[in-house]
């Protein structure tokens, strides 16, 4: 299996999408000769030409609208928001149009499109270029929301999103782009059944730690810390946030009796808060030996200074500390 970064794995998936469907085009800002702000589309212009790799003016509203119009007329577009923060400028086509057309028209159309964007903090890009807005889209019926965490799942999930007949918001955390691993570059799947499935990264009995996007990587490293070696930690990567695989988390919590959710986004009305509410209103409630915890980003815009940025985002040490607290609490 070839070794590659997440950015390269996404590019491989994009190539496969372009190869498998003649109607597919990619549109976005600086995706052509520049290769994308994060280099993800580097080389695609040379391979597929301007007809299919479309550099747009700085116009997010029409970038997203373009995808909707193309999707309801037989194409399978993939569009890019250079930073997912700019999706704010494209909310109408995504929220009022893409998400609703299938339902509003009584099923007469499908809207098979992907909006990809770079999300998250950690690069010093400050408040308008560092957000984790994924939960906004989870709130909207009709959208699917996917957050890969490494090269392999980015590849697999982008393909699954592509074969899904619904609009998919695909949020790529900036810090995963350079993560490197071997990737099995499988063929285009026949259906999108991979969407909506979480993955158990590591099995354990003492606590269930759930996360998604780049925070999963922090959880994995935290669990390897010396001070936690005595504990048996189950780690779950949600992967798809809408629809969310709460059932798997509920099953896990019934076994471990403890739940910690870690996310970069602030807690209020978030993925973690929704997941916790689903768990405590489920059969797993009785199994819990303490209240679940949500380790989330501070309720603050992202500051630019490095030492402040790391204060806002939960760090590995915070995760270690929280896991210890929760397990030792009960022993």
């Amino acid at each position, binding site marked *: 299996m070839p070794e590659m970064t997440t950015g390269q794995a996404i590019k491989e998936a994009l190539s496969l999408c372009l190869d498998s469907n003649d109607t597919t085009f990619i549109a976005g800002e600086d995706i052509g000769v520049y290769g994308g702000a994060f280099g993800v589309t580097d080389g695609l212009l040379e391979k597929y030409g301007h007809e299919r790799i479309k550099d747009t003016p700085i116009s997010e509203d029409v970038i997203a609208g373009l995808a909707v119009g193309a999707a309801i007329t037989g194409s399978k577009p993939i569009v890019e928001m250079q930073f997912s923060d700019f999706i704010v400028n494209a909310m109408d086509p995504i929220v009022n149009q893409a998400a609703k057309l299938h339902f509003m028209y009584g099923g007469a159309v499908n809207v098979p499109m992907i909006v990809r964007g770079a999300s998250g903090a950690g690069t010093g890009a400050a408040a308008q270029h560092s957000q984790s807005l994924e939960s906004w889209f989870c709130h909207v019926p009709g959208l699917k929301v996917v957050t890969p965490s490494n090269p392999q799942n980015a590849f697999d999930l982008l393909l699954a999103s592509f074969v899904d007949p619904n609009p998919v918001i695909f949020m790529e955390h900036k810090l995963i782009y350079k993560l490197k691993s071997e990737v099995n570059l499988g063929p285009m799947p026949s259906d999108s059944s991979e969407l909506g499935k979480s993955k158990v990264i590591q099995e354990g009995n003492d606590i269930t730690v759930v996360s998604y996007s780049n925070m999963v990587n922090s959880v994995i490293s935290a669990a390897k810390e010396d001070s936690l070696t005595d504990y048996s930690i189950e780690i779950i990567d949600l992967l798809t946030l809408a629809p969310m695989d709460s059932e798997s988390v509920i099953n896990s919590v019934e076994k471990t009796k403890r739940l910690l959710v870690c996310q970069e986004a602030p807690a209020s009305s978030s993925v973690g808060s929704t997941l916790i509410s689903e768990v405590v209103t489920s059969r797993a409630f009785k199994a819990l030996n303490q209240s679940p915890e949500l380790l989330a980003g501070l309720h603050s815009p992202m500051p630019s200074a490095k030492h*402040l940025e790391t204060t806002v985002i939960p760090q590995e040490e915070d995760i270690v500390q929280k896991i210890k607290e929760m397990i030792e609490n009960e022993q």
Partner: protein
Amino acid sequence: MSKENKLELYRMMLLIRLFEEALEEMFSRGLLHGTMHLSIGQEATATGACLALEKKDLITSTHRGHGHCLAKGADPYKMFAELLGREDGYCRGRGGSMHIADLSNGNLGANGIVAGSLTISVGAALSLKMQKIENIVLCFFGDGAVNEGSFHEALNLASLWDLPVLFVCENNQYGMSMASENAVAGGSITQRAESYGIKSVSIDGNDVEEVYETVSKCKEKIKSSGKPMFIESVTYRYRGHSKSDRNLYRTSDEINFWKEEKDPLKRFIGKLTEEKVEIDELKKVEVEVKNLIRESVKKALESPESPKTNLEEDSYA
């Protein structure tokens, strides 16, 4: 224009150039977190435009805003401190390069969102008008911004409601990698303004006197007519869009042409010497600006980090 005035224009352009060169140096030494957008090559527009304003006139700025900020009167020390995440920075280390605001000098802030400040400038102008304050709002934005919907909504409303905004499009001919000529349908940015009934003019944005004079005239006209106006200031950026740009979308010949033939500082120095300004006088300005930069950097590096407390409280007034 008096010699003092001209020397002030020179001083400000040099201050902006050296400020950003100092940032580049700090960046390469790993002192700065994040990225930044340098306006090296574009100093004449920021300088000519802001020095033509009064202190109480307002500006809105962009991601490429260090020049606007300095020219509107900001203290380079507080700007360096901001970029270094220090408590004395204009935004206490919360904003950084892309979000410096200096309300005390009428700078309503840089903006990380392309075209993000256009609609805000219209609101600021409405507010001035309703409060019967006789100042104007100068709204800076790039050529890339004219393709955002908010550009069109802002111009339309400013014109409909007769608001005192001077729209200044810094056309450095690229929005990141996208050449303006490939992005602007119809080819003309000023025509877009005209189509909203806004008087507009295209100028050499690397000629600091032309910028100064045009903005001065527009300012007076806006005050007397109450209507918005529009300037397209044609210029060029030498550096990459941000720190990660490989410059694949333009040739080094093109960059060199602008550096050699059109550089705003070189041209202005040439003009001043033709007008018999003594080399010594220019040297004096240069020494003074270099000292200011050196001392500001040093002081900023020695200043305390912004404390980590109260970030959540800081989100609300």
